[in-house]
């Protein structure tokens, strides 16, 4: 079953200043779906749209087979738990009091507060006022607030933002355990490695446009997964051959970095040898996610 289906989404705050263009993707139930992009790429805006906080200029957002605008506020936010941009709370109140406010609005029992605080590792700090909390603790509290009503879909904007490495691992494990309990998660981040470890599927945004939708493993598989670092003489002959074969390359520290699918490597080397090119060294380098991200357009 599909939790979300987004079709041809377009959004702008002002005319001729679009933030998102033609975004389409779907999120299956019981999946961790990632929104990846650098700061200002439109991740938070997209999250605000899919959780019904703003209306799109154009396009369709379907949530469990029903357009999102057909949901009542009550139905929508009982199914959804949301943490947008940063954890926002009343600074003069304690963690417990802040969560108690949510239980009042949601008509749920106060005992749930202790359960979620335990889940996010804040059970020893419930008496602290929120202005006293570190960024990481606020982030955990935001996650607790999103989980308090045990929603089916959890939308988290940069959930690991401000967390220390230990905290990142804990949150990652928490999100995975939520998934294993049948929850659907939509998570945004600008940290590639984090998304790689967490997400089943993702959309990559660049300047408000979708440049990739699918699984990260598929992205790595589809793209040239290796680069050859070639040190050979004469370089001009190598470059001429690469140009002739329309293989992309770049020069880095006297080396020729060749972007090529691994099954074409033997042919290339064979041809270089045939043309009497003296090959000093050939090294393979697995492309990093960063390389892939940069190469996406």
């Amino acid at each position, binding site marked *: 079953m599909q939790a979300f289906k987004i079709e041809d989404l377009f959004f702008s705050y002002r005319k001729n200043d679009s933030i998102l263009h033609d975004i389409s993707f779907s999120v299956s139930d019981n999946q961790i779906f990632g929104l990846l992009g650098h700061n200002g790429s439109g991740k938070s805006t997209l999250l*605000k749209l899919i959780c019904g906080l*703003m209306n799109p200029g154009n396009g369709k957002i379907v949530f469990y087979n029903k357009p999102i605008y057909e949901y009542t*506020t*009550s139905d929508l936010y009982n199914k959804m738990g949301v943490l947008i*941009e940063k954890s926002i709370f009343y600074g003069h*109140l304690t963690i417990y009091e802040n969560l108690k406010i949510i239980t*009042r609005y949601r008509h749920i029992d106060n005992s749930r507060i202790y359960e979620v605080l335990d889940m996010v590792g804040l059970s020893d700090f419930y008496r602290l006022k929120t202005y006293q909390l570190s960024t990481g603790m606020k982030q955990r509290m935001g996650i607790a607030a999103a989980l308090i009503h045990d929603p089916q879909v959890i939308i988290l904007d940069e959930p690991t933002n401000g967390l220390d490495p230990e905290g990142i691992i804990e949150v990652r494990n928490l999100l995975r355990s939520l998934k294993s309990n049948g929850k659907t998660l939509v998570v945004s981040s600008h940290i590639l490695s984090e998304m790689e470890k967490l997400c089943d599927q993702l959309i990559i945004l660049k300047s408000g446009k979708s440049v990739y939708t699918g699984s990260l493993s598929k992205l790595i598989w589809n793209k040239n997964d290796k680069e050859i670092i070639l040190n050979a003489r004469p370089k001009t002959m190598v470059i001429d051959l690469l140009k002739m074969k329309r293989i992309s390359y770049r020069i880095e520290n006297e080396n020729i970095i060749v972007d090529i699918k691994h099954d074409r490597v033997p042919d290339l080397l064979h041809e270089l040898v045939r043309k009497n090119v003296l090959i000093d060294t050939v090294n393979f380098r697995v492309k990093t996610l960063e390389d892939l991200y940069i190469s996406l357009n």
Partner: protein
Amino acid sequence: MILIGAITAEIIKIRRSGLLWLASLGTIIVNMIFAMLAIYYPNIFLDNSQYQNVWYTWIAFHYQGILGLLLPMYLVIICALSINLENRNDTWRFLYVLPVPKYIIYLSKLFIVTCIFILSHFLFLVLLILSPLIIQIFRNELNFIFLEIPFELLVSFFVRTILSSFGIIGLVFFISYFSRSFIFPLAFGIIGFVIANLLLDQFKFPEWFPFTYPALNLFSKDSLTIEHKLWLINLYSILYYILFLGIGIYFSKKDTIKTR
């Protein structure tokens, strides 16, 4: 049920907030000023009470002191502070992802502001009655404890003050809620006070502007023309409250986080 949940949430929010402190301390300070005045300058009350019970002068002084400027500005500040609690903490996004219709948030906040005002005015009334017990220790000549308290006059002032303030609350709360600013409603309050004074000075159409309503309660019934009878003024005040409540609910339903 949703409204009750929202109201209890609002009560948790205002606990230990500046709003509650201001509402209670502000009231206590005003009462203390009047008490100090009676202790240091008892003649003000004695000279005006030669032919009547000193309690009448005491009550009249209190209401003359607050209805013109203090009360309207107090209402402006509590309305602005109640909304500023969300603006300062940037918690609108937190509220808008709750399973609560947006108009319920408007309603619950307005309800709380109205209750705070009624309760603080009740505190004002209680202190108005109790402070003479302390004053009597220092100024025996004022004879407060030997004279009968005119409860009828007190209740009349209490009810009329509350009813005549509803118009200001409805209007200023609406402006505070949608202006997203603390300064704007304050500026509006100051302008409102100036306009109210001009209207009262000329006595032209004061019944159309809610900021004049509390002050109109100070006019003796005989000095008001038929259009400005107190019951009518207080009815206008309630109608203003209902009008801005309706407009507020309409706009809050259309409100999105984009405008916040």
